[in-house]
């Protein structure tokens, strides 16, 4: 018997099949994933962000904790725990909290938790590495049943991003009071209001997160995420090849071709807005001598390093800010034109020798520079700089240390000498980097100003850039900053790299951006393909 299929029936059947198929595909996309295994180059000794401000802690804890606000996929500010917020005047922000938000232990989030979290960051006794984000805050008060008011000592444009940043993560007031020392350790795992609950933590080794059914926002697709530390790049690559991990962040750009060649992973790239730099402590010899600093600046082959290490996936840095960081103030093209007017210290060993000859250290000197073994570029950059410096009479020893030791040494802010620093932005604001690395206020322990650069004119200009909301006014102020610091060779910018991640080709992740360590990436377009 032959079935007789009319054209109308065929079309109807085909349409129904397509609809059913698309539904099935959509349904499968929503299917929960039992377990995701994610590798990071390192896992810190603590999961308490105020004591471990790092991108890898951020990549984990951004899934557990939230701030009042969040960064969207386009890096703009969006509501999170606060359903709305408003800037009442130049110095006052009011956040209205969402109803029904709970911590991982089921306890409700209250304005008191927000106040306690912010005050903890501000308290010098806490020793928070994120304290600088609150340096302009005067008071934080619970101004209603579901309202928190933050008053600043002076207008500060940058503060608007703090509630969306790791610095704005909300802690349980009760937990902060009960475990002031142990919070972040396996004995007192930090609670948060995020989509995941931190259930297991082996310091420097493993972290296990479990999805929360009672999360207020988008429900997580992955029920369980296991993070493991795999410092070695090739070991991570082999783990992905063998299917032992489902994804990882922070690929070395120079390894991208190897990752793509695996066949079972997708490589996703995005502008990182990051910057690599050398800081030089101006408070002590030999770097208190501008000629020494300029000699160092002329000895860095930025173009060469971009070609060799980044395979041209990045840009030689002529100033601290990547051009894209000026968004909202100047276009990247305008920024590049402006940068072209600044002293940029293009690689030139003859000029380096001439500068050193003018310094008090014409005979050269010896310096030891620590670099993180977890970072794919630092040790190679330092080797390259060391070889160039040797040719002008400066002996630079490269000390390879683990990531925790390197970062702790930088924040200790003692005998800094020369340091290498890789920094990825906290938010896309042109005043962010200059404030962190050039403001006198940050030339302290736990501060980022490793050059101990102090200049009253720069501080004043930074104040304007931080306080005024007019883009033109901010642009002029920041131009002043960059003219001074580049002329002074306050630090040596090296390059602005792209960023890349790898994910099993069974999965997708649409929300990858420069702030992968500051967004709940596992609920930003993550799921089965």
């Amino acid at each position, binding site marked *: 018997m032959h079935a007789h299929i009319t054209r109308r029936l065929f079309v109807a059947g085909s349409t129904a099949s397509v609809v059913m198929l698309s539904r099935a595909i959509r349904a499968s996309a929503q299917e929960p994933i039992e377990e995701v295994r994610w590798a990071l180059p390192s896992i810190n000794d603590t999961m308490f962000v105020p004591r471990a401000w790092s991108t890898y802690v951020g990549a984990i804890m951004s899934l557990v904790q939230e701030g009042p606000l969040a960064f969207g996929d386009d890096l703009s500010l969006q509501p999170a725990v606060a359903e709305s917020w408003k800037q009442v005047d130049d110095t006052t922000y009011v956040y209205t909290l969402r109803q029904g938000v709970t911590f991982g232990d089921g306890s409700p989030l209250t304005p008191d938790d927000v106040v306690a979290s912010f005050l903890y960051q501000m308290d010098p006794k806490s020793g928070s590495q994120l304290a600088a984000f609150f340096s302009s805050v005067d008071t934080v008060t619970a101004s209603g049943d579901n309202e928190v008011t933050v008053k600043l000592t002076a207008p500060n444009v940058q503060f608007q991003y703090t509630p969306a940043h790791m610095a704005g993560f909300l802690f349980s007031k009760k937990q902060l009071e009960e475990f002031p020392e142990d919070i972040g350790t396996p004995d007192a795992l930090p609670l948060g209001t995020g989509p995941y609950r931190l259930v297991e933590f082996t310091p420097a080794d493993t972290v296990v997160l479990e999805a929360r059914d009672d999360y207020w926002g988008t429900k997580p697709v992955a029920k369980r995420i296991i993070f493991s530390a795999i410092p070695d*790049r090739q070991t991570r690559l082999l783990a992905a090849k063998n299917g032992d991990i489902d994804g990882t962040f922070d690929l*070395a750009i*120079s390894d991208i071709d190897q990752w793509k060649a695996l066949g079972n992973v997708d490589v996703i790239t995005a502008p990182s807005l990051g910057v690599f730099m050398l800081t030089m402590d101006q408070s002590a010899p030999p770097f208190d001598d501008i000629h020494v600093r300029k000699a160092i600046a002329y000895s860095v082959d930025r173009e060469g390093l971009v*070609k*060799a*290490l980044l395979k041209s996936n990045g840009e030689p840095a002529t100033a601290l800010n990547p051009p894209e960081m000026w968004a909202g103030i100047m276009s990247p093209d305008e920024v590049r034109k402006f940068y072209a007017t600044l002293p940029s210290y293009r690689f030139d060993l003859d000029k380096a020798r001439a500068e050193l000859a003018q310094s008090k250290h014409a005979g050269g000197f010896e310096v030891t520079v620590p670099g993180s073994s977890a970072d794919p570029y630092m040790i190679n950059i*330092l*080797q390259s700089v060391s*070889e160039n410096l040797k040719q002008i009479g400066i002996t630079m020893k490269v000390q*390879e240390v683990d990531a925790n030791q390197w970062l702790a040494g930088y924040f200790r802010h003692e005998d800094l000498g020369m340091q290498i620093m890789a920094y990825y932005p906290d938010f896309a604001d042109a005043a962010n980097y200059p404030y962190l690395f050039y403001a006198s206020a940050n030339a302290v322990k736990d501060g980022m100003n490793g050059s101990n650069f102090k200049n009253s004119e720069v501080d004043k200009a930074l104040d304007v850039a931080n306080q005024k909301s007019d883009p033109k006014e901010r642009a002029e102020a920041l131009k002043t900053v960059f003219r001074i610091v580049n002329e002074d060779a306050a630090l040596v910018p090296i390059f602005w790299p792209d960023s890349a991640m790898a994910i099993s080709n069974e999965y997708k992740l649409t929300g990858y951006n420069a702030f992968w360590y500051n967004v709940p990436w596992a609920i930003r377009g993550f799921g089965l393909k």
Partner: protein
Amino acid sequence: MTEHVEATQPKERAPRDAIPPAIVIAFIVVAIVVICAFFGGSIAPDSPFTQRLEIGDTPPSAEFPAGTDLLGRDVLSRVIHGAWTALIGPVVVAAGAFAIATVLGLLSGYLGGVVDSGIMRWVDFMLALPGPLVAIVVVGVVGGGYWTAVAVLIILFTAPDTRIVRSAVLEQRPRPYIDAARALGVSKTRILFVHILPNVLPIILAYVVLDFAFALVNLAGLSFLGLGVEPGTPDWGRMLFENRTILFTNPVALLLPAAMVILTAVSMNLIGDWLFARFTRQ
């Protein structure tokens, strides 16, 4: 009768005097390493430090027979210069360990009693430690890189070497020439260092060569873990570590230093075994 003598004499001499081809090759390999270590600057086609960032890592070519590494440095030149750290560290470890072990072994084997007991318990303790792990922990905590690693290996290698020297001394102690020396009133120090030492020295020398091979592999391993030489130093272990990221673009940058570590270690092992067999037969 005459024919018989002529026919048998070469057969008796052959095993004692002829050097097996494998040992000849081993000596050639070691000789090349020694020449590279001392005359690397003259032999290497380029400086091991010269960067060519504009080309970065490249596969072997006419200009660079072993290609270049990530910073564009000539891999062949770095391997040739790497012979220095491959040679000097293991030599110091082997010599240092056996210098200490010889004294301890002589005292332990000859004096016996409390001295023997004390030294051998220390040896037992050291042998119970996981050597490579101890080296990793000490170098990682103390720092100091290559020479700290060398110092740690000297201490670790001393224990088994002491046991070897002691057993050789125990074999010599009951011999008539020692009794004769004692009867003549020769001092213990003289008996130890003038009479016994020369008789155990061949065995010690054979083991020194084996120690070299072990030290070479251990130091290369520590450098691979980032605990040996300073970054940038041409060193075979360090090159294995640094160049593993360019395995796909220039595999020679990884395989050549690896081959040198293996070849040198195997060669020294063969030479050590051959020397040991030769000396014990004598």
